[in-house]
């Protein structure tokens, strides 16, 4: 037996490598294709998962959601503390500052400004003979200032003085009148109640 040297062995290996690299590459398996292994001696065909129909469904859902998406700043998000009563009015809601009166707090544009105690404003937060809610007034004045500053550069977004009240059905009437009086003192002149659209009683 003729022994081959290490040098010869390396040369043979290099030639084999060159030969293999010269062979045409096997076609890449496309994404989503799966080749099933042999089962019971049979070669099964590649299974392709079609996502086209899923894409169609998603397109329809997306269009529907974009159509129903509301761009108004006044939005009602019912919760345990905010159960809004019904109305048969069909008047649309306008863009405005939203004051939300829940059983727990008073919010301006969904930001809490006053915490209520048993649906009442604490004595320390009241002024003007118990009619004006001071923290609410301060925040509303800030909001008015911001809207007026925007109006200087953007005439379309001028300060209209509209305020929308989103009220829980259980809030006491005095709290509502206090909030309305406070908004009136903060230069708001048009008041709207936002209610859930329902059938006539």
């Amino acid at each position, binding site marked *: 037996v003729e022994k081959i040297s290490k040098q010869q062995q390396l040369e043979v290996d290099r030639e084999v490598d060159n030969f293999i690299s010269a062979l045409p590459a096997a076609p890449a398996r496309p994404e989503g294709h799966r080749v099933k292994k042999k089962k019971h001696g049979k070669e099964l065909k590649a299974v392709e998962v079609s996502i086209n129909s899923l894409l169609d469904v998603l397109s329809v859902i997306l269009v529907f*959601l974009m159509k129903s998406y509301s761009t108004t700043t006044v939005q*009602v998000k019912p919760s345990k503390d905010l*159960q809004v009563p019904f109305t048969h009015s069909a008047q649309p809601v306008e863009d405005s500052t939203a004051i939300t*009166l829940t059983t727990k707090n008073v919010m301006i544009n969904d930001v809490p400004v006053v915490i209520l105690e048993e649906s009442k404003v604490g004595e320390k937060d009241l002024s003007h003979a118990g009619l004006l809610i001071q923290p609410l007034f301060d925040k509303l004045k800030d909001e008015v200032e911001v809207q007026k500053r925007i109006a200087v550069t953007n005439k379309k977004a001028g300060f209209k003085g509209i305020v929308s009240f989103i009220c829980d059905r259980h809030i006491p*009437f005095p709290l509502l009148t206090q909030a309305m009086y406070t908004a009136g003192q903060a230069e708001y002149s048009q*008041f709207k*109640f936002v*209610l859930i659209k*329902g059938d006539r009683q």
Partner: protein
Amino acid sequence: MPKSASERRKSELGEVQLNLNPMMDLFAVLIPTLLMMSVVVEVSAVNVSAPAIGPSDAAEVPKEDKPPLNYTVTITENGYILSALGQPLPNDQGEPGTPQRPTIPVIERPTSCGRYRGTVPPPRAKNRDRSICDPARPTDTKSFWIYDVHALTRRTTELKDAYPDERRVIIAGSANVDFEPISDAMDATRDVDEKGTVRALFDEVIISPGN
């Protein structure tokens, strides 16, 4: 079976597949975002005027010879007290409405729970001893004390017939009344459905702090 010309061409050139995965990723982000931001409930607006603190301008100087109607609906725990031209309107017994004997008293009636899931209808102080409407069973009907909104609409329509030019209603409430009967009274006095035709009644609402 021999392949058709198009099939042969396709197999020779290799099928071009559009990679839809990035689009799917985009949809997977957009749809949950829109679902979170979408408004679940449909809302409507009701215009009101500021509470009349102190003497009201409307009540002072009449523009014409006719005195202003000053139609006022005061909501108490016992019912609606109606007044016009500064006088309380009589109740069914012919007596002027008072807080104890209002013009339209509350009535006890089987009421659908559809509007009052998880609570009781107003006046809630009178229904305190009743069991609340089960949120899971909105079709239930229970006996409750309720405000007679139909009678309020009827009396308001009669008043509108007598004073067709008047549009203003003042809605006041006692301190123990909550918001829901206020909004119900606004609905009942704003318009009426007369056999499919909506007729406007008193659509200018002034909220008054009452007494």
